[in-house]
């Protein structure tokens, strides 16, 4: 695993998130559920808890966009870059952006939103990429039906717990 340079992390255990807009590829409640489940993947192995707000500035702002979308990293159409996210911090830090030129899905066809969201939210919490092919934080997208329910690798767990320690319970 690796963390961003300087190992930025949230200086609190309760983190807010907001889904700013939605892709038309999926029903809204499916997007809500995919994001909630993706956050739970990290919640289960850290002391962190997450709560959703529906307006105002959250720690993690989640949005869908195409092409140029207001940061210095325009999306590139279908394929290659699927999404990106920023390390913990104020303002746009911590935010996660999803390329809406992709065909988002929750099954094996298209691009699995739950899997990509769990990866991107790993960045929002402070993890950088891992060169371990078994890790969720490996940069190249690979969906296998066994990943319908994501299992973090030991590498992912050691990485996130190097920032936030183990769950308190």
């Amino acid at each position, binding site marked *: 695993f690796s963390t961003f*340079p300087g190992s930025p992390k949230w200086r609190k255990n309760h983190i807010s998130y907001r889904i700013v807009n939605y892709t038309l590829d999926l029903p809204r409640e499916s997007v809500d559920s995919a994001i909630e489940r993706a956050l739970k993947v990290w919640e289960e192995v850290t002391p962190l808890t997450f709560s959703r707000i529906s307006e105002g500035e959250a720690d993690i702002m989640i949005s869908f966009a195409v092409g140029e979308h207001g940061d210095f990293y325009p999306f590139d159409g279908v394929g290659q*870059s699927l999404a990106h996210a920023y390390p913990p911090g104020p303002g746009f830090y911590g935010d996660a952006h999803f390329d809406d030129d992709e065909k988002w899905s929750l099954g094996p066809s298209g691009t699995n939103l739950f899997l990509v969201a769990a990866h991107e939210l790993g960045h929002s919490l402070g993890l*950088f990429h891992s060169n371990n092919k078994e890790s969720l934080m490996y*940069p190249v997208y690979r969906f296998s039906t066994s990943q319908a329910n994501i299992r973090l690798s030991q590498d992912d767990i050691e990485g996130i717990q190097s920032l936030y320690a183990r769950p308190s319970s």
Partner: protein
Amino acid sequence: YPLHGAVRQDHSTMDLAQQYLEKYYNFRKNEKQFFKRKDSSPVVKKIEEMQKFLGLEMTGKLDSNTVEMMHKPRCGVPDVGG
């Protein structure tokens, strides 16, 4: 005659590789002139760095496995650097 496993280094492959290394491996744009000679050492080193991170054989060349990997969908966050 391309060596076994090498990919014909047409422009699109070179451009893909240059963009990929700039975007994800901190290959600085001012090294652009190097990319015209794919066997220049900064380029070879950068290709090897990418191959090592992604778990590919470190050939330093744009072989078929490496080109195939660069075409795969991925996260837009870089693999190295700030």
